[in-house]
């Protein structure tokens, strides 16, 4: 795929991204030599699941300029779709996955139609509000665990048998999903639609007076991002076999923003690298102290103050 001049990443960044994907693909081969194999695979699977959500957030945040502080709601909705259907004995992937996508699309259209009419801090607040609404709805669902959450018996099934029960198989399912959604989002931002979205981030009035319905474009991007994040939730529920309102908390939405910005927003690979960095740092620091947030907080502040463009910015990657 040819990249027009300004969205072509620097060479170092391109190499790093390919290296990350290759490393993720090959990690299971090296896992036995590090520490507990299951643990590493589980951790990396979680990284990749959140990377999918982060990539979807980068679409609307990095490329669209829409700072959504409620994106975790979609992850939660996806997870709860799996959980609630499972509680009623429906686990077939061919039913659960479309329901996940439909629920997220509906929520995105409903909330996005209102949110997209606002700009700046009001957009942040209203997406936060909608995220909170989803959170409180989940906590009130007493028959589905409420605050305590809901346990799943087994993974989603295909023709009656749970898919990918083997950790290795599940790992590659998630990897495949990440690769797929990364490429899909890459195609979208490089397309004509993507061009309008990116232009609207920088100069919405100009784009509007050219004849583009900016609100509609933004809403479309918002719905796409919501659906992709929903799939992330679907995978999360399948991974942990547990569903909880905490998946939708505003702190989780904040963490997603951190992942996107930490890696370098508006690049897509930044979202992947940011998720990797965030979760690995979290794991590493929590082995040092249970109070790892006391270290992570200042780290985040330092990154904001001194590392504009995130980790990729430090490497000299340009983004458009």
């Amino acid at each position, binding site marked *: *795929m*040819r*990249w*027009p*001049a*300004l969205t072509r990443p620097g060479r170092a960044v391109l190499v790093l991204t390919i290296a990350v994907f290759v490393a993720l693909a090959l990690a299971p081969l090296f896992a036995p030599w590090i520490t507990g194999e299951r643990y590493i695979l589980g951790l990396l699977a979680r990284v990749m699941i959140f990377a999918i959500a982060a990539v979807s957030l980068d679409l609307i945040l990095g490329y669209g300029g829409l700072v959504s502080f409620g994106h975790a709601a979609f992850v939660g909705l996806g997870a709860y779709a799996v959980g609630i259907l499972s509680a009623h004995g429906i686990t077939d992937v061919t039913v659960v996955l479309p329901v996940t996508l439909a629920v997220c699309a509906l929520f995105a259209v409903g909330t996005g139609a209102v949110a997209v009419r606002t700009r700046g801090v009001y957009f942040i607040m209203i997406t936060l509000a909608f995220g909170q609404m989803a959170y409180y709805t989940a906590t009130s669902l007493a028959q589905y665990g409420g605050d305590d959450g809901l346990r799943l018996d087994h993974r989603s099934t295909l023709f009656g048998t749970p898919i990918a029960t083997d950790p290795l198989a599940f790992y590659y399912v998630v990897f495949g999903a990440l690769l797929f959604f990364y490429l899909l989002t890459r*195609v*979208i931002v*490089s*397309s*004509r*639609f*993507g*061009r*309008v979205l*990116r*232009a609207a981030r*920088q*100069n919405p*009035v*100009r*784009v*509007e*007076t*050219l*004849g*583009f*319905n*900016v609100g*509609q*474009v933004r809403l*479309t991007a918002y719905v796409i991002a919501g659906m992709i994040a929903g799939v992330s939730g679907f995978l999360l529920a399948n991974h942990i076999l547990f569903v909880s309102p905490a998946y939708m908390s505003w702190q989780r939405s904040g963490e997603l923003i951190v992942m996107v910005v930490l890696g370098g927003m508006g690049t897509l690979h930044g979202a992947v690298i940011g998720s990797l960095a965030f979760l690995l740092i979290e794991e590493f620091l929590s082995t040092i102290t249970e109070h790892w947030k006391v270290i992570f907080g200042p780290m985040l502040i330092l990154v904001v103050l001194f590392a504009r463009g995130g980790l990729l910015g430090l490497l000299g990657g340009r983004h*458009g």
Partner: protein
Amino acid sequence: MAEPLLRLDDLHKNFGGLAVTDGVTLDVRPGEVHAIIGPNGAGKTTLLNEISGLVPVDRGSIVFDGNDITRLSAHARARLGIARTFQITSIVPGFSVQENAMLAVQAQLASTFDFVRSQGFDRDMVAAADDVLEQVGLAVRARTPAGLLSHGEKRALELAVAIALKPKLVLLDEPAAGTGRGETERLVEMLRALKDRFTIVLVEHDMDAVFALADRISVLVYGRVIACGTPGEIRNDPAVKIAYLGEEEAA
């Protein structure tokens, strides 16, 4: 006589207690260059905003090409064939010059929800974009980030973008503002070449440019049109001279 391309009928707009547009009635004939002049604060830019749809009017109607567009959104009006430039140059600074033009070409093609066609392979669009850049003399700067252009080059890019839309009506908001003598002359030449292709509404302070280009001139003072006529008529109109009070000598 031909039906006017644009007809403004008794437009009114209040901001707080101030009547910025106070009963503007105006028509623009197809193919003409219609200049709107007036002292600062007369409401000229607001009028352009009302025509292009960025500011809704309180009362009155706007009819364009036979359609009542008074309540139509800005993007719908653009689709109907109204293009505009802005007083403070409005381009997409992070895009290259070429990509700015391509965005306009894409708008003309009315292609928004195309998720597949990748930028790199849009050969026809690239050709159309390059052609329009050629017309304003920016072809050499195609790869430059638009934010790094000089003031005059940005103005040229805005013009290219307007042309690329293949509009019926072009609204130009002080295209000569901030340009020096030489650049103004080049601009006038460029606009003269465009005269035959588009109907133009030109808001401008530079009287040399106005008198060189305009077929008709409307004079806006305190939100009202106090005179409308050919450059010769306006030059000799006593009301216009009083309104300007020596601000600009109608040479």
